[in-house]
């Protein structure tokens, strides 16, 4: 049996050193079985310790099936200034469109993506592969055996999702797309100004 205080310290230290989301199972592996409840309580205690407050610069967040420590997004401007970095390159709209298709339709093949977007998407797919946001998930058993694509754990991390179930539901968009809906008319009016 391990002291509750020590378990909390270990959990905090692991999250600090690991720089990636750590799921409870990996933390539980470190301790004897009868510490189980204490480990789970320690994770909650650390989450609480790093809860968002105006004077906190670091937060604990649940992403990709684990917990990780990271800076609060609101401080981005300050950090960019301090480290004198312009920040990572943002994804283009083309890349985000392609990523959305992969996220919602996975596993999805290159030709299917091209069909949905109406344009050739191979360069964008390469960008997403290089940024590890998508991966090749096999081949589709049709003529030409095109690659199938799926999202990665890195995608969940970068978009702050606990799992794919956390994606904004597509039904919402379906509703919005209903002809005559208030939102669509509003949009049309706004863009015609």
């Amino acid at each position: 049996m391990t002291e509750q205080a020590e378990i909390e310290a270990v959990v905090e230290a692991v999250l600090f050193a690991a720089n990636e989301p750590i799921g409870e199972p990996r933390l539980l592996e470190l301790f004897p079985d009868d510490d189980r409840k204490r480990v789970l309580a320690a994770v909650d205690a650390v989450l609480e310790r790093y809860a968002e407050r105006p004077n906190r610069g670091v937060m604990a967040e649940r992403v990709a099936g684990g917990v990780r420590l990271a800076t609060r997004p609101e401080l981005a401007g300050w950090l960019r200034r301090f480290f004198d970095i312009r920040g990572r390159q943002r994804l283009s709209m083309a890349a985000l469109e392609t990523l959305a298709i992969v996220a919602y339709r996975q596993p999805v093949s290159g030709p299917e993506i091209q069909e949905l977007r109406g344009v050739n998407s191979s360069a964008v797919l390469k960008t997403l592969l290089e940024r590890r946001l998508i991966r090749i998930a096999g081949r589709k058993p049709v003529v030409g055996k095109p690659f199938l694509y799926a999202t990665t754990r890195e995608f969940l991390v970068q978009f702050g999702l606990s799992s794919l179930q956390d994606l904004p539901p597509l039904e919402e968009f379906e509703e919005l797309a209903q002809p005559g809906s208030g939102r669509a008319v509003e949009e049309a009016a706004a863009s015609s100004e």
Partner: protein
Amino acid sequence: MTAATETGSGLPAEWRVRLPVFEGPLDLLLHLVRVNEVEISDIPVTLICDQFHEYLGLMEELDLDVAAEYLYEAALLIQLKSRMLLPRRADGDEPEEDPRQELVERLLEYRRLKEASQSLAEIHGLRMGIWTREPDLPDADPDERLDLGEVSLYDLLKAFGQVIERYDREHPHALRLAVETWSVRKQFDRLLERLAPARPIDLLDDLRRRSSRGEAVAAFLAVLELLRLRLVRLHGTGAGELLLYRTDRAVSDEERESVPS
């Protein structure tokens, strides 16, 4: 193509000054639906088709490269426009299919996709501002950075590409020929795998495709082995091809072992 005259067919006047750029033809169509304040489900084909062509005309005026995808869509629209002009049958018990149906579905689907990607863009914009630390790994091999659960085919291919590239760089061609030894058995296996019943391969063509003289020699020796074991037969054609046919014989392990490796 519709002339982009001063009156035009109704594209916003400022487009003549600053032409917006779209992600593709579907994006342009969706935008035209918006600026005209029409419903996707009841799209005025003639108007949209004319404006689409006018946009392409503006692109050409500006010497922009009009991508093939736009031209393809333009052709579809012209076809649709002409179908809309055909008289519809008034009789018939079955409800007539709207020729626009397919376009409508594609646009609705694309609009959903647009909405989804915009919400991803918002999340992306916010979360780009999150910083993490460089991990400090006590005693850990700093090279062990690929998570086995995350390594995919793309990484594997890339790694192989790197090996080949580095090897070629470090081994000037002449030297490599001297070092390389080509396995006859490997060529034997390769040919057997390639040879499907009733699908002959052209021996000369196959030999020509070998990456080096050494490999071609090994492949030729492998063909001799295949002939010896009556696993293939060779057939010369009038056109000067040497066709290699797979016979019905199965290859035993002992026979395979007898091929020099």
